């Protein structure tokens, strides 16, 4: 579904990704874990066209999408839910949703789609006329996820969905992502909260210093003592699995 081939890239002259390579299958959840500064969020920005890629290739369903703009990535069926709060504060919930489909050509279809998404997230229908800034943190995150669904993406990039949410809300968000996976959406997620994220994922990917160090089924990674070791500050210097 998505493949990164030996990506080098970063901000300005600073290189963050040092030959990142991995491949994820369709209709799966893959969680990227790794220490701070490993380049987890940077991988997402690279995929979504928000980063200078110096070399390497990104393939989406076999098509080379390296160096496309965010708009072109959206058109190709990719949506991105970044870390933190990402609503337009002074616009209503409904208009925030509508912005999620700003690139859609058929606006009538979009309106129907907004109704469907509000069926999926009844809270959004209830507060549709409220300003987004008046929602709680968890509600704003739901709005962001809902907004990313409007265009029926094939691939969703979700960065740290659990930050600032209560454990119950985190469960809700994870369950939503699993439902989406069951509907055929491919999800690539970054999570600080590695344990609970891997528990709901199909695959896990350990990123260190901008390179994929381990990539395996989530359950296997969860059981691997080296993963725990890595999060205590160690390095993986035994065999590299890609």
């Amino acid at each position, binding site marked *: 579904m998505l493949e990164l081939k030996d990506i080098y890239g970063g901000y300005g002259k600073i290189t963050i990704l040092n030959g990142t390579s991995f491949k994820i299958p369709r209709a799966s959840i893959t969680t990227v874990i790794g220490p701070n500064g490993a380049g987890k969020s940077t991988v997402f920005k690279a995929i979504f066209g928000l980063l200078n890629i110096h070399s390497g290739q990104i393939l989406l369903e076999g098509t080379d999408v390296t160096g496309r703009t*965010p*708009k072109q990535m*959206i*058109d190709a069926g990719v949506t991105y839910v970044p870390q933190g709060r*990402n609503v*337009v*504060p002074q616009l209503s919930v409904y208009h925030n949703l*509508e912005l999620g489909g700003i*690139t859609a050509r058929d606006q009538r279809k979009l309106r129907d789609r907004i109704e469907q998404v509000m069926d999926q997230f009844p809270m959004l229908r209830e507060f549709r006329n409220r300003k987004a800034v008046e929602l709680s943190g968890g509600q704003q995150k739901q709005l962001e996820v809902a*907004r990313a669904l409007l265009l029926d993406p094939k691939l969703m990039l979700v960065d740290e969905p659990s930050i600032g949410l209560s454990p119950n809300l985190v469960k809700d968000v994870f369950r939503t992502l699993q439902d989406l996976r069951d509907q055929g959406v491919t999800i690539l997620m970054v999570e600080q909260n590695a344990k609970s994220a891997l528990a709901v994922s199909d695959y896990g990917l350990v990123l260190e210093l901008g390179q994929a160090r381990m990539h395996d089924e989530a359950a296997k990674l969860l059981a691997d003592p080296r993963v725990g070791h890595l999060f205590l500050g160690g390095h993986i210097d035994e065999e590299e699995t890609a």
Partner: protein
Amino acid sequence: MSEFFQLIVSGLSTGSIYALAAVGFTLLWQASQTINFAQGEFVMLPAFLVLALSVKLGFPLWLAMPLAIILAVLILGVLFKRLVVEPMIKHGTLPLVIATIALGVLLKEMVKEFYSPLGQPFPSLFPQDVVTIFGAVISIPDIANFVIAMGAIVALQLFLGGTRTGRSMQATAQNPDVAQILGVDIKRMVLYTFMINGALAAIASILITPIYLAKFSNGETLGLIAFIAAIVGGFNQIRGALVGGLLIGIIDNLSATYVSAEYRQALPLILLIVIILIRPQGLLGTSEGRTV
């Protein structure tokens, strides 16, 4: 009492024209962190475009005015963004502010040098008649100015809130990173903002210049008033800039009659000091409107 009413009405009239400049000022700040200290000259210049087109080139007034607005949109909107803002904003807000100050001086001196250092009569769009309402004598240009200026601001608000492009512009101003990842063409939205500012400045120019004469130095006070009105209103919202503009218009008019014409120019500054002391976020502002 009727004199007071008269002063309020004519204050609202000039105030609504100040508000046009202040709203544009606020829009530029929101969309691109541009503090435009040439805003006063932006209001001064279009009147000279009208004069150049009508007096020098012989266009009829009904054609010269819309042409001047279009030219203002291109020069004060598109060219300003391309030639001044884009190259300077890379170096930060302060270099850009200084560049706008320089631009203001340049525009002023150019008009003085190439058009005339003397005040030029400027035609009014409206008959200089008066109507009597509740015993108060109100001039027709005052009413017309108020209606047109407020109409422009209301139309702008409807556009920003009621159309998808308008809402994309709001998204760009309030959270550009989010706008970008949703696929909003943020560069184009910022360009629209600059073009709207050019149009607002041109409308303000055509309305306010008949009250004085068209003079190269007209922007000095106007720019200051637009700046103060925007700050008084809260700096980050259109409604605030509107209230700020109207307030300064009224205070300006009342003080000229009841206090002293000599202190007239000082009063907006006093208002600014008072507001900054007691309500630094501005009348309608929130303490920090921008989210990161």
